[in-house]
């Protein structure tokens, strides 16, 4: 195909605007066509000085006013070839005529000359126009983007400033936090020192190092020793609570078999329970139940709940611990046959220092903080704890803990839930 010649089809009617657009692109026009359309085209083109119409193939119409026009008769492919040969680079060749001629001719056209029909050409023109419009739109969009980029830059700088401020504030907070933790350790030390001294001397006397004691003296000093221990436990519990409230308590989670954990605590309580002839029953439907929890903390919860049950259940009572697998959670229920809790006291059960008028059995006196701490420990594990009780009908404490085990699918890890 001769790429140096522009093709320009006109099929069917010649529209003026088509003509105007194309006229600009035409040089040294060769018109290959037949019939009235060719005449019309020539007439339409004749007003232009810039166009040289160099070849025309037509039948029997006249073609007035055309310079250098030559009418040759019914166009054939030989004529097309002839025109092609005569065409110089940059020339435009027009195909004009009705569809039938066009189709007939397009079969005849020699070589690889490409023919496009008018609609297609029209579309091409439109595309070209659209292309120009798109170019313009792109430029405008680009300018718009430049403005936005500038805006974003400013925002970026503002963010950097805020970030620095935030980093500063963060440093100050960390310092305050450190001071607070120092406060807790200082308090811990200051409170424990006099207790240690008291304890040491109490035991020096009890061990009869400075001299023998009478039975009364020994008894009274033992009371002192027990209360020193009680004070020690109270301080530990208070520190536990303030650490948890200051959100300083970090959980040290590992995979634990909660059944094992519970059994260990129960075993430890046996001596106390036996003293009151209390039966410690367990209802574990499975031998093992794994959870991802802080072992020490959950042991503390069991110890507290079971210890309370033993303390507040009268002789010959029964305490039952049931642990059940509830799919994503584990449910632990501790019931006793104790004296129960009055309805108006139920809401206060987990408050600090609430000890209702229940007669306590032997053993060290409680601090009043055990249940408050247990509640906080359970909630730190995202669990829940509650109590059901009726006076005379015993008490039941229930707590659930999310297992927090990894899902069976490979994507999730142990901390995902």
């Amino acid at each position, binding site marked *: 195909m001769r790429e140096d010649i522009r093709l320009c089809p006109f099929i069917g009617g010649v529209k003026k605007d088509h003509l105007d657009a194309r006229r600009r692109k035409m040089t040294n026009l060769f018109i290959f066509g037949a019939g009235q359309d060719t005449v019309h085209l020539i007439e339409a083109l004749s007003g232009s000085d810039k166009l040289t119409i160099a070849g025309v193939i037509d039948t029997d119409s006249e073609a007035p006013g055309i310079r250098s026009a030559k009418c040759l008769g019914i166009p054939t492919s030989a004529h097309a070839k002839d025109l092609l040969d005569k065409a110089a680079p940059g020339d435009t060749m027009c195909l004009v005529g009705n569809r039938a001629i066009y189709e007939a001719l397009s079969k005849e056209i020699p070589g690889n000359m490409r023919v496009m029909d008018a609609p297609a050409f029209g579309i091409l023109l439109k595309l070209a126009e659209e292309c120009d419009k798109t170019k313009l739109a792109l430029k405008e969009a680009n300018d718009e983007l430049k403005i936005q980029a500038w805006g974003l830059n400013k925002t970026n700088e503002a963010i950097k400033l805020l970030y620095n401020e935030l980093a500063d504030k963060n440093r100050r907070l960390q310092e305050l936090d450190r001071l607070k933790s120092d406060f807790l*350790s200082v308090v811990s030390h200051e409170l424990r020192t006099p207790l240690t001294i008291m304890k040491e001397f109490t035991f020096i006397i009890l061990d009869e*190092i400075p001299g023998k004691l009478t039975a009364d003296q020994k008894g009274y000093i033992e009371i002192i020793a027990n209360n020193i221990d009680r004070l020690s436990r109270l301080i530990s519990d208070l520190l536990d609570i303030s650490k948890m409230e200051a959100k300083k308590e970090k959980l040290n989670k590992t995979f634990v078999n909660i059944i094992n954990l519970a059994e260990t605590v129960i075993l430890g309580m046996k001596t106390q329970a036996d003293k009151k002839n209390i039966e410690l029953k367990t209802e574990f439907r499975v031998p093992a139940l794994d959870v991802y929890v802080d072992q020490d903390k959950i042991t503390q919860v069991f110890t507290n709940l079971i210890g309370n049950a033993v303390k507040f259940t009268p002789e010959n009572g029964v305490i039952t611990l049931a642990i059940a697998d509830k799919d994503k959670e584990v449910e632990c229920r501790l019931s006793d046959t104790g004296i129960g809790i009055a309805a108006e006291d139920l809401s206060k059960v987990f408050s600090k220092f609430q000890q209702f008028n229940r007669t306590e059995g032997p053993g060290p006196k409680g601090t009043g903080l055990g249940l408050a701490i247990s509640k906080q420990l359970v909630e730190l594990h995202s669990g829940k704890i509650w109590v059901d009780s009726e006076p005379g009908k015993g008490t039941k404490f229930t707590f659930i803990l999310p297992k927090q085990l990894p899902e069976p699918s490979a994507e999730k890890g142990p901390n995902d839930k």
Partner: protein
Amino acid sequence: MAKKKILIVDDEAEIVKAVQIRLEHEGYEVLVAADGQEGLAKAKTESPDLVVLDVMLPKLDGFEVCRFLKFDEKYKKIPIIMLTARAQKIDEDTSKQVGADAYIAKPFDRGAVIAKIKELLGE
């Protein structure tokens, strides 16, 4: 057989007294010092068989006293037990770093301290 000498360095006089009563009852001779400087001086001049050293001391802290003794050819053989009420991991790590032979947190179990002393004295 001469009594074994134990040096206690702690600024809490009453705690020191309690420990002293116990140790003398067990048959040891007890020396005391109330601050780090005095403790270091007595350790060098009195040749104790064992030193019980508190961490929080005025003038020179317990870790420094331990370090001075343990990094000195003449005194490094003396067993040192460090005592502290802070009970933080960092104290345990530091006492290992300065060469202490044992680390006991306050409030200490008197049985544990005496057992440790006997152990370190090879009894």
